[in-house]
């Protein structure tokens, strides 16, 4: 297993290199670069009447006029030495910006996953055990509703409805856990619910169908025949084997939550990596985008590795040489 883990970690390097190269090139060939934005404000009123000359000058200052391979080599050399550069707009170190947003996204991911699992597991188990009963129909209705309702719409409701009914809004001014733990946790409650409830529908459907398949296996029939209690059959025998596809899904979800929960982050005012990514792309802040992409690539690779390790724990037949 140790060898396998090491080989997987080494294999991450070329993956991250390719991803960083592709993103590096893509963001730079998109028209409307950072120089245009800085000089003209994206078309909004500015006091600059000779934008063309200023844009060229700024491109030279930012070394955007250098050949792409040279720009990439400079960035890569810095990244290898732990220097991801500085953001173009505020001039703050990229690593500092990313490390500021990372805990927010990680927290949101953990809480929303917890909500998903806490909601999905009981519903899926009940639904599968009581197949084709009213409990099952209710569970499936819940999952269809969860799949149909976008998480950002749910998030908007969580903001607007309390204001309309109670003249109260969930916290949307972010504070760290050290500043105000109670407010900090309350701030994460509603976005976690919005993301978690939405994803729980997917987990529920997958787990239910996985459990139904496992229930048909001979060893489960044997367990019933032996007279084991329902709880033991489900939790000790069936559930573990039904979790493999769910673990795969969770791994994908973690990656998506770290990078793509931008709409929920915007609605609830959370300064996470999703929002930072979209802002950085919009502002053409190339160093920030590149730093974030690096983190995402590493994050996905790590999560995939953890999923593979989890497979081995769940199914002893799976062994890695």
């Amino acid at each position, binding site marked *: 297993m140790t060898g396998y883990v090491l080989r997987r970690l080494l294999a991450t390097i070329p993956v991250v290199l390719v991803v960083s190269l592709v993103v590096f090139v893509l963001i730079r060939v998109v028209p409307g670069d950072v120089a245009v*934005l800085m000089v003209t404000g994206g078309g909004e009123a500015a006091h600059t009447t000779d934008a063309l000359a200023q844009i060229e000058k700024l491109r030279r200052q930012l070394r955007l006029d250098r050949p792409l391979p040279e720009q990439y080599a400079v960035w890569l050399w810095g990244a290898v030495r732990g220097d991801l550069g500085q953001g173009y707009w505020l001039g703050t170190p990229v690593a500092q910006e990313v490390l500021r947003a990372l805990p927010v996204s990680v927290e949101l991911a953990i809480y929303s996953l917890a909500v998903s699992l806490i909601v999905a597991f009981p519903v899926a188990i009940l639904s599968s055990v009581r197949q084709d009963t009213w409990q099952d129909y209710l569970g499936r209705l819940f999952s269809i509703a969860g799949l149909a309702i976008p998480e950002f719409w749910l998030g908007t409701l969580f903001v607007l409805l309390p*204001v309309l009914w109670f003249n109260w809004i969930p916290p949307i*001014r*972010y504070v760290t856990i050290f500043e105000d733990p109670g407010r900090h946790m309350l701030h994460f409650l509603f976005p976690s619910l919005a993301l978690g409830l939405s994803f729980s529908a997917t987990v529920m459907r997958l787990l239910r169908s996985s459990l139904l398949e496992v229930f048909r296996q001979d060893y489960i029939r044997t367990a019933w025949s032996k007279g084991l209690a329902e709880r033991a059959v489900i939790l000790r025998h069936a559930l573990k084997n039904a979790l493999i596809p769910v673990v795969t899904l969770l791994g994908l979800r973690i990656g998506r939550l770290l990078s793509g929960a931008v709409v929920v982050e915007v609605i609830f*005012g959370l300064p996470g990596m999703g929002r930072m990514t979209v802002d950085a792309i919009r502002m053409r802040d190339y160093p920030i985008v590149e730093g974030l992409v690096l983190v995402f690539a590493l994050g996905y690779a790590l999560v995939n590795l953890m999923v593979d390790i989890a497979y081995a724990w769940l199914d002893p037949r799976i062994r890695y040489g």
Partner: protein
Amino acid sequence: MNGRACLGLGRTAAGAVALLAVACASAPGAPPAPGPAGAEKQPQYGGRFRGAIYGAFESLDPHHQAGGGKGLQNLIVYNGLLKFAKEPVFTADRVQCDLCERWEQVDPQTFVFTLRKGVKWHNLPPVNGREFVAEDAKFNLERQATQNPRFRSGGLVAAIDKVEAPDNYTVRITLKAPSAPFLHNMATGWNAFVAKEAVAAEEDALAIKKYHIGTGAFVFDEYQAGVVLKTVRNPSFFQEGRPYLDAVDMHIIPDDKTRFAAFMAGEVDEPGFFVRPSDAAEMRKNPNLEVKQVFMTFAYAFAMNTKKKPFDDARARRAVHLALDRQEMVKLLAEGEGCINPPGISCALAPWAIPAEELLKLPGYRQPKTEDIAEARRLAKEAGYEGLKLTLQAYGSGDGPDRMQLTAEQLRRNLGWDVTLEVLDPPVLTQRQLAGEWTGGHVPALAGTAEPDLALSQIQPSTRSAQARYGYEDAQLEELIIKQRQTVNTQERQKLLRDIQNLLLEKHYVIGTYEIAAYRGWNKKFQGLSAEPRYGELIRWFSDVWMEK
């Protein structure tokens, strides 16, 4: 000329100002003297104002900014030579001293400012509270004039030829030519003075500012990127007894609905950039909220690439001008509350703009549109553009797509053109415009202040940006724009601006559309706030804001 502005615009200004929001509810300026019961309220010390803005700061250096509803609120830590008087808000002539005690116009091109004594920079390293002197003003004005491409406020000092500091409290500014916008440009919030020790070398485009050191009523405390800008009371502010508030925080809440909901629930004390009429109706239901209407000054216009077909033909441009239904735009895009722009100037900038009662009788602006549509179709046919297939471009931000959708629909309906839209990311469209690779569309905002020259400088034919974008050459327009800029006499300047608008109504290089009316709101416990829609104009009056406990 004495130190108090005396360039009043007369009766027409008074009538025009009546259209605009009256500023604050409470008395401006110095706290009222104690009086009998029932007298005006006495300002109280203490409290924290929680503002809301819709986007993160592009830069914390004020000279990197030149517009936008976000990124202005950091200006609260700075002062400039002048500032706008609080009321009325949109009259460019009403300027008064900020860091100066008085000023004198020695001749048409020379101004001498006598600075206040004892003004201190914020007590932050490396400046550590030293006195603000004339050399600091000179540094800032010259800094903005450098050709550093990140300094988007360079246009504010473009009229200046040289700045001298003969002693610690005198600043002598010599202009290249008489300049009507000069005093406005000195008073605007973007012309802010930063401490020279705190800024990095100019050749470094990525100048990192470690401290935002100004002389303002509030001192920079902390900026959490994307979250909040915090400032605290400046105990050494040069106005004795000011500011009243302990702190002003600006929370970044990107989502419009969330920001508005936060305001309605009391999570923040004002709703951000501006509020639409439909949301203002909700605000009015709450007796604890102050609601004021303001007209924006964006000078929204439809612009074209006159180097490319079909808009290289004046008949095609006129056809568009006649076909556009501005009243429908106000109704559908501004929720019925707005005004209609003449070309090149915002309708909210009375008395510079053609008055509405005149404008709405002109072809293109009048209702019903039957005659105009018939003439538009005739012109299009004559120019060979009957049934034209056309692609227009839209800025993919804000209400840009909505405006272009409606414009495209009007052109389809009224001209019979087959119009398709390209909705593009703002910098992408800007780059294409500067490369001449576009056809036409709404420009996001020509201006945004009380000074008409800002919009006109964007469409001045000789400027490289206008040349690249719009492609027209017009010696008469060029001459008029330069002349109005150098004409300080208000009546004469009004006439020139009228000539410009008439010329644009003939040539249609840009086509005026509409202006939106929006609303400002705040919690009534805060006294001294203004209905000015963008803080850049009146941010320095935050020194007078106080909270009723």
